[in-house]
């Protein structure tokens, strides 16, 4: 199991154990993290699971692919550390990952 932490926009921490191979978004939905809508269900088609990856983790998480980058155009207040959480797969190297939820989705 890999540990994940979501920090909601109001500062509340949501700590969880995530299965490797699942997406970060799926874990947010399973744990009812407020502010992650995932309207399209993980198809990289809506930009409503937008998160900010904690600075300490951006290198390990990596850059979005072209399709995700296109979708990020539709997100609210996009920053250099913005990612769509449905496109980040949980793996051992991400143990302890921290992501923050933006003020709103789109």
């Amino acid at each position, binding site marked *: 199991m890999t540990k994940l932490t979501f920090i909601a926009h109001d500062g509340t921490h949501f700590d969880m154990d995530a299965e490797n191979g699942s997406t970060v978004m799926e874990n947010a939905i399973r744990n009812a993290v407020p502010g992650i809508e995932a309207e*399209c269900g993980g198809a990289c088609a809506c930009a409503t699971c937008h998160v900010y990856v904690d600075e300490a983790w951006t290198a390990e998480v990596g850059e979005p692919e072209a399709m995700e980058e296109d979708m990020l155009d539709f997100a609210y207040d996009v920053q250099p550390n913005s990612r769509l959480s449905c496109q980040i797969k949980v793996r051992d190297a991400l143990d302890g990952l921290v992501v923050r939820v933006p003020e709103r989705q789109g």
Partner: protein
Amino acid sequence: MTGTISTDVLIVGAGPVGLFAVFELGLFDMKCHLIDILDKPGGQCAELYPEKPIYDIPGWPSISAQGLVDKLLEQIAPFKPDFTYNRMVSSLEKLEDGSFRVITDENEVFEAKVVVIAAGGGSFQPKRPPIPGIEPYEGKSVFYSVRRMEDFRGHDLVIVGGGDSALDWTLNLQPVVKSVTLVHRRPEFRAAPDSVNKMYAMQEMKQLEFRVGQVTGLTGADGQLSSATIKGGPDGDIEVPCTRMLPFFGLTMKLGPIAEWGLNLHENLIPVDTEKFQTSVPGIFAVGDINWYPGKLKLILSGFHEVALMAQAAKRVISPGERIVFQYTTSSTSLQKKLGVSG
């Protein structure tokens, strides 16, 4: 306004469940007309994820979303449904004889004995961009589509976005406006490379301005814009003249005018019974993702089941007193006749 279009069943939404409703209703000789806000059938399957595989359609271990839509269209073809695209249903009223009058946002009038709401997550509508304080300008100087190019003549236009709509309108409106500034958060575009090249060429000739960044603020009064603030580019925050703005931030789903049809709602969903899938108004049914009942699952599979039962109830509304005979397509010669196949 064209004349009234009459049909047995008006289906609001041409997604997979709306399409399959045509099949089940057709087996009972009910003629269907579908209205959809998109320019094509298939709903979310066609608009959001056409290439994505679906794994839980019985009999199809894997089928692409568009593939499923194509198969459904093939399956319902014998019933010759009519389609009206690019329209949102704006109002619905019950007439004295128990039928319904439905009016679209382009003022077409439909009359139907039964209405089936298969509107999924609601209608696709332009997404409001993340610009604070944009609301008072909407419909006055901020527009989400171009109905008449003349409305932009002589204006300082700012277009926001990086897809085909943004690029196409930048190029098409450039000759009529006073100035055009294209704003996109990065130098890469989703639009056709040819349009992007044209845009850069026009920028070279100083016919338009392209700025990398995000619009963060608007200035104006009484709904009329005067300037926009752009942040994120190499020049820091800059202010550009702006009397018209066209933001293109994709589509989102909203329940829309259905909320005002006098139906009971449950968290933006339409409660139905699980025998008929009828709403709080007799003769109006709701199927697929837009309905709610205890245990509801938003699966295409569930929607298919719902339309089969709904069709029985709709038949009772349209042909009261007529005996409904339960038949299998495998063995019924009368159903096979309707499907245009011989047994």
